[in-house]
Every structure is written in C-alpha cells, then in structure tokens.
C-alpha cells in the first residue's frame, strides 16, 4: 500500500527536503480540481473514510455551493512512491481559480516547485487556466499535464492531449489521463509528482525566510497564516517578524494541515504549514510578505511582494437605510479576512448612506456583496462598477477619481484610465464576432494564435472600464458561451473621457453619473434617460430627465404629469379591499426615495443601475 499511516510518516520539522514535493493544481472552475483533491485525500488515507465529504477542502459554505475556491489551503499528504518504494511528503497547495485573484495565485505558485495542469477532457483549456499556466511557467515550475474526467462520454482525450502538449512543449502521450470521480489514474499521478517535481532547495542554516501565500481569519483562532519555509526554520514560541510591516508576533502555534490542522514542533526548509499568532486582521499578515525571526532577521526579503490594489469600485448601499450601521460592522468583519477589500463611507442623494468599496475585480465584488447579504442578512443595492481614473487639471493638479461624482468640473488636461491585457480563448468560428466586440470596446489587437485546428487565443489591450461594463456577458452571448476570458493589469493610458450626468427635474442624480468615452456619451445619455423614463412613475408634475456633459444637455426625455390615480369602482361594498390597497400603496410610497421633489422607487435605481441583473449574468457566464 503506497499510503503511509500519519504516525509513521515523516514529521514536520523533521523531514528531509529531498523527501518533499510541493505542488499546486491549476484548473478552471468546473474542471474537477476539488474532486481530484478529494481522491488524493482518500488514496493517501489522511481522511477517515467516515469523515469524507465532497469538496473536503473548500471550507466556506459559499465555496462549496458555488463550486469555486476562494481561499487556498495547503494539505500535507504522506505518500510512498510506487516507483522507488520511498516515503515522501506531498504538499498540495490549493490555488484560487479566477482572474481577480491573479496575485494570490502567483504567490501560491511561488510556494511550489511544480504544478498539475488539470484540464477537463470534454472542454479543453480555458483562458484563465492558460493565464495561470503561463504564470507557472514564468515561475519555472515543473508542469505535469493531466486530462480529467476521462470517464465522461463526451471526453476527447486525443484532441486535448495534443492541445496541451503544444502549449507546454511535451509529447501528447506524456499527458496523464485521470478521473477524479472514479479515481482512475490518481495513484499514478501521485507517483509522477514524486518523480517529476524537484525537491525544494534551501539553506537550513541561513536566516529564516518563509513566504506567506495565504492568510485566513478564523473566528476562534484569529488569523491563520499559510507559509512555505524557504530558508532556516520556524519553531513554536519563536518571535517572528513580518518583513513589509516590521510587525512582531509570537508564534502561538505552528503546524501542518492533514487535512485538519495538527500542531507540530516547527517547520523546516521546503515545508508548508500554518502559523497562528493571535493577530485578528489579515492585513497584518499579508500575502506575499516574508516571515522572518525577530532575533535574527533576514536582510533580503523574498521577491514579489505587492500591496493589493483595488481595480474596480462600486457603491454599496443598504436598501433599508437603518441597516447602515450593520453594513459597516459587516464590512469591518469581512475585512479581517480580505486584505484586498477597501471601503469608505459615502452618501448619495438617491441611495442614502453607504460605502464606496474597492475590489480586485468583478468576481471579488460579487463575492463580497454576496457574503455581506448572506452572512450579515443585509439587503443591498450596488451601483454600477467603475474603475479608477487619474485626472490632471490644466493647473497641474492631480485627482484620483474612484467615484464618478468626484470627477472635476474644471478645465481638464488629461484623464488616464486603466488598461488590461485580455486573453480570449474561443472556437475559431467566433474570431470575427470577438474582434468586433473588442473593437467596439476600444480594444487594440495584440495578436492571435491557434491552440489547435479550431481553437484560438486572441490577445487585446482593452480599457478595464469596458470590461466591467457587461463585457463577459456580451462575450458569452456572442460566442454561445464557448469563449473564456482572462485579463491582467497593464497600467494606465490617457483616454478621451467625459462625465455624463443624469438630471432628474434639473437635479443631478449622482448614482447615475458615469465616466464614458466621448464617442459613447450620447448613447449612454439616451440609454439612461430612456430607461429612467420607463422606470419612474408619473408624478404630480412633468419631470424632465436630462443627460448632460457639464452644462451641455445631450439627451432629454419627459415623464408626463400624472392625470389619473383613482379606482372608480368599489367592488360591491368591499371597502376592506380598497382600504388595504391604499394602505399597501402608501407603504410602497414610503420606500420611495425623494430626489428633489421627485419620488423614485427603489426598484428604479436598482433596475437602472442593472447591477443585479449583471451579477446574475456574470454568475451564469462564469459558472458555465
């Protein structure tokens, strides 16, 4: 039996680096990573069969339900190789699988020497997987290509083995074939990991350096920090120091996950495990930072540390204004576990009090919102997401705009907007339609490559603002769901951008202001005024809805004054029904927001901003 009982396996802090293999699994959302991980847990017998459950490692409910992994974990798996009969420790480092978490992925990759590239052999590789594969190759990781779900009737292993072999430069027959579902090929895969992935190399006598590749807030334990020791070692009661912040903590507990946390005597070179210091906020234990010892600190941190940078901003408002303090509390709590989430209070004439929040991207935004609603029981409205603009005025003053309402009205010299490099994978029949979409979204074609006879990789530079505005949705619908997308930050570029304001009865409604390209300002104005005309009920007086750039009106609609609001008949003396109807309407009126003298139903804001619908669509597109 290649599985080794935990008690007889090499122990943390006492394992020769030559016996260690650190690897991660790169895969698209539904390509079966969690199921394969489940099989590995079973085959290595670290989980009692009675305690086994599906997607064992996806700790948060939200992850299990949505089939995605947000936070990575590292599991220590003892394994006796079927090839040389020796004992090994395999550390499986789980990686997040989405575009918004590229930086976290890169840190997880940096903790490994190799990666299993896992691809569904009925679907082929997806853009995000490809992006992560490139990232892994840049990190010089040994790549083991694996086709999953070979038990499926729709499997096309030959076709996709060829595709993978071209991508990583190996022979098609070197691509392994497994089924996470049935377990076929998984033992062989574990043996291949031992055989192919290099053992970690480090200096056990040097100053301690450990890479933080994840940190998670736990209600009972505080922050749990996941590390990979590069040099030296970490032991219980050590005084540790975070390189970037200089913060000093005592190591209350150190250990490995198998797959429940088990405290150990420490972690040595090449080992992967967790630290607990009693810290309550993940921002004090930042992904990418270097852990060293306070008494004997390293002078050279591990490379690649970055502060998380929010790319997309949106206003979050409680539908019930009284829930504002609860929203603040919930955000404070969430931030303990999400170093990338930033927020500050803002108020809107239309939506009341809320927070302007910064996210890594659209999925991050969606997850935060969903967690706030689910975990804190809040009912939220989010405004249309926008990106960050850098505005330079003619007097040389710089303004960073994270909310369209901050866009200056003065003389503007230049506006810079974030640009991303987007990679789109799709069947080649959709090249035309994809290029049309990207051109329409102000894209610049960078290049195109055929992955196989009928699949292409198309690369574009696109303004991020164009992506946050229903790009996924359009891409998916125009390619019948076959295209996949990944993008990465590529800095800022100047753009011909203007702010379009929407005025309701001559008052600007900040929630509807948008920064758009000048060529699209008119279309935005017409679209938004038209939408609002449909959504806002008629009032006692005529209400003009206007779109304006500065003082210049570019579009106008009118809501005619209401002339009839009465039920003429009264059903055979059913006074009760009529009274209840009026009471109900009165209640509905209470939920109206006043914009100047105009009553606007909450639903009109939600529908006009359309983020709910967009979120549904993004979800559907992503889950596909």
């Amino acid at each position: 039996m290649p599985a080794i009982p935990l008690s007889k396996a090499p122990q943390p802090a006492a394992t020769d680096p030559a016996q260690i293999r650190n690897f991660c699994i790169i895969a698209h959302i539904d390509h079966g990573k969690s199921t394969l991980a489940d099989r590995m847990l079973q085959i290595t017998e670290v989980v009692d069969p009675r305690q086994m459950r599906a997607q064992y490692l996806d700790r948060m409910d939200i992850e299990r339900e949505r089939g995605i992994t947000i936070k990575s974990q590292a599991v220590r798996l003892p394994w006796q190789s079927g090839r040389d009969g020796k004992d090994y420790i395999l550390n499986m480092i789980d990686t997040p699988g989405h575009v918004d978490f590229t930086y976290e992925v890169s840190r997880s990759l940096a903790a490994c020497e190799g990666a299993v590239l896992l691809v569904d052999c009925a679907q082929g590789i997806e853009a995000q997987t490809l992006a992560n594969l490139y990232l892994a190759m840049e990190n010089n990781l040994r790549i083991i290509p694996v086709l999953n779900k070979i038990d499926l009737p729709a499997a096309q292993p030959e076709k996709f083995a060829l595709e993978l072999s071209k991508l990583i430069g190996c022979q098609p027959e070197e691509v392994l074939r497994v089924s996470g579902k049935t377990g076929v090929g998984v033992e062989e895969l574990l043996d291949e990991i031992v055989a192919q992935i290099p053992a970690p190399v480090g200096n056990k006598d040097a100053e301690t350096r450990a890479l933080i590749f994840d940190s998670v807030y736990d209600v009972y334990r505080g922050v749990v920090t996941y590390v990979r020791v590069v040099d030296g070692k970490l032991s219980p009661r050590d005084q540790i120091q975070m390189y970037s912040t200089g913060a000093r903590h005592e190591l209350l507990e150190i250990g490995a996950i198998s797959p429940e946390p088990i405290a150990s005597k420490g972690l040595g070179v090449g080992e992967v495990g967790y630290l607990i210091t009693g810290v309550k906020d993940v921002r004090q234990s930042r992904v990418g930072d270097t852990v060293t010892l306070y008494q004997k600190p390293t002078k050279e941190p591990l490379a690649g540390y970055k502060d998380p940078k929010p790319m997309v901003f949106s206003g979050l408002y409680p539908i019930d204004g009284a829930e504002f303090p609860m929203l603040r509390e919930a955000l404070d709590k969430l931030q303990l576990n999400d170093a990338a989430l930033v927020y500050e209070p803002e108020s809107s004439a239309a939506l009341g009090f809320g927070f302007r929040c910064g996210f890594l991207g659209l999925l991050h935004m969606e997850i935060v919102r969903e967690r706030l609603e689910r975990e804190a029981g809040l009912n939220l409205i989010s405004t249309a997401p926008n990106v960050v603009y850098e505005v330079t005025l003619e007097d040389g003053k710089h303004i960073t705009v994270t909310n369209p309402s901050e866009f200056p009205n003065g003389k503007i010299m230049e506006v810079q907007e974030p640009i991303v490099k987007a990679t789109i994978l799709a069947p080649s029949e959709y090249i035309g339609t994809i290029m049309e979409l990207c051109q329409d979204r102000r894209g610049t074609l960078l290049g195109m490559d055929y992955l196989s006879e009928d699949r292409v990789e198309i690369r574009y530079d696109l303004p991020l603002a164009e992506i946050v505005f229903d790009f996924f949705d359009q891409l998916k619908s125009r390619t019948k769901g076959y295209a996949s997308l990944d993008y990465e930050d590529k800095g800022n570029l100047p753009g011909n951008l203007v702010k379009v304001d929407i005025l309701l009865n001559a008052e600007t409604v900040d929630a509807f202001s948008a920064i758009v390209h000048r060529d699209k300002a008119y279309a935005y104005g017409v679209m938004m005024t038209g939408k609002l005309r449909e959504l806002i009920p008629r009032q006692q007086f005529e209400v003009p809805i206007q779109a304006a750039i500065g003082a210049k009106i570019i579009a106008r609609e009118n809501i005619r004054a209401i002339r009839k609001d009465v039920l003429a008949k009264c059903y055979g003396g059913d006074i009760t029904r009529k009274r209840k109807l009026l009471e109900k309407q009165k209640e509905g009126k209470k939920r109206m927001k006043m914009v100047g003298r105009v009553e606007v139903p909450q639903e009109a804001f939600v529908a006009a901003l359309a983020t709910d619908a967009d979120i549904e669509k993004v979800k559907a597109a992503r889950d596909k």
Partner: protein
Amino acid sequence: MQNLSFYVHIPYCVKRCGYCDFNTYTPAELRDGGTLEGVSEGFIDSLIAEVTFASRTQTTTIPTIFFGGGTPSLMPAKELGRVIDLLKQRWEFAPDIEVTMECNPDTLTLQSLEEYRAIGINRISMGMQSANTNVLKVLDRTHNPENVAKSVDNARKAGFDNVSLDLIYGTPGETLEEWESTVKSALSYGVNHLSAYALIVEDGTKLSAKIKRGEIARTDDDLMAQMYLAVDAQADKAGLPWYELSNWGRPAEHNLVYWRNQNWWGLGPGAHSHLDGVRWWNVKHPSKYSEKLANFESPMQDREVLGDKEKNEERIMLQIRLREGLSDLTPEQLKVFANYPNDVEIIENRAVLTPSGRLIADRIVRELI
C-alpha cells in the same frame, strides 16, 4: 331607531362578459349542471335563511334595498318578491324607501318590468356600458344598444320614476369621440341618474388575456382622464351634477349608505356587510353558501373589526369621493390640500374635489392616511 340597508347578491348571468371578474356564475359553471330556473327557487330559499341572521341585529328600519349581481333580472319577480316580503315582515320600511335592481336591457320586457314594479321595486339601474357596437364587442357584451332606449321607455311605462344607466369608459380601442357619443345617447334617454366607471382590466379575465397576448392595447391613462372630464361636463350640462366620483344626477340613497359608512347587510354569496364598525363577507361560491345555510350555519367567511385608525382611514377614503366632501379637517390635512390648489376646494370647512382632483383621489388619500 337604527337603519339597516340591504344589498342582495344574485350571482348568476347567462354568460360571463370578457372584462368581468365579479362573483357570478353561468349555467355552465353551476355544479349540478342545472338551469337558472332550476336554481333560482333554492337560491332564494338560502337568501331567506340568511335574513334570519340579519333579524337578530338591533335594527328597526330599512332605508334602501339593492338587488345586484350577476343579473338580478334573470330572477322571476315572484322570487325577488319573496325576499322583499320577508324583509317587510321583519323590519319597518322607511316611508321613502328606495328599492333598486340591476337589469340587463336585453332581458327586460314591459311585462317583467311591471311585475318588478308590483313587488315593490322602484328604481332600475340598467347596464348599458356603451352605445358603440365595437366597444360592446370588445367588452364581450351581448346586448343590442337599441334595446336600452326601448327598456328605459318600458321602465317609465311600468311606473319607474328613477332609472339609472351604467356606462364603462376606456375600453381598449374606444376613442374620446366614441365615448362622448355614448354619453350623449345615454343622456338623451331622459334618465335621472348616470354611473360611469373606468374599465379596470382585472387579472384572469378574457380581456386581460387578450392584452397580454398583445391582441389589443390597454387604454392610456391620459385618455381615461379626458373621458372622465368629458362625462362629468356632459352630465352636468344635462342637469345631472356629480354627487359621487363615478355617479351623477339624483343621488342613489343606497350608494350613499356605502360612502357615508352607514350600516348595510349584504345577503348572498360573497356579499359584504358593515354594521357599527364591523365588516364581514360571505363565502363566495353559491353552492357553499347554500350548503352553510341549509345547515343553519352563518355563511360568513371572515370579518374585520375596525379600529380607530381603520375607521378614520375609511372615513377619509369614502367621504372624499362625495360632493359633500371630507369633513372635520385637521391642520395636517389642510397642509396636504395646500399642495393641490387646482384639485381641492375648501368649502365651509369641508374638502371637495374638483374634476382634476377626483382623477387623483387615491393619490390624495394616500397622503391623508
């Protein structure tokens, strides 16, 4: 002396009109496949059984009786007469008692009208709806508009001094001109009362289904408003001034009972009643209704005891529909009315709606409650 009016619900029609969601049944919908003649006698027996419950109240005098439906004129006069006779045995009839019945102009003859007059009915309310055949077709009405003139004439011959016509405006496809012409016809028959109701497209009706399928378009509210103003002006000019939001001419006393929140007992399936701050309503289906009464049980389905808040809300909502207007105005209410200078007039400390105000009565009420 305490008054109690009676509403008597006759839940039968020859066929269901396309816009109707009232509690009424056609022969085809009756449980035992019976004919109207077959059910009428048994149904009247049930009404009579319900009167026993009404007679336990501390009321003495009946000011008004109203037979509504459904189509009361489907009932033979002698059957309706049994109800009137019983009420007369148990209560005192006010000297100027008003006894109204709703009629379908198609089923009326001079003879039947004379029979109805003979059992004590003294006011006829006729469902004319429209003088325009296209409009009647959309409403799915069976009658020939010419029958209205003839029936009004017959009613007068049979000795009815009080005749009212019911009209519906805002039927899909109806133009303002067509409506004005309908009103003109109705007024030309010399009736002393007119009701005009805006068509409400109720869910579940044939008409609503047609609109959902896009076969016909719902009438624009602005056109409805113009139609209301037109009938108001025309009726006023013809000597029938408004006295309630949808009613013109010599006030129907029974109508005022509702709007003034007075006491009435609704006999029949689905009928609503109000007595001293308590409202209740009967089970809706005629079979269920009759079954209950056959077992000497009350046919009441549910009731609502009004609190002070509800009472006040109802007073506001009902009074404001009347020409006599809303009384006992508070400073807060006056403040609301100040926002509606063209829609409300304050006359002797009562708030009276102008024509444009009547069109937004519900909106104003929502601000008052």
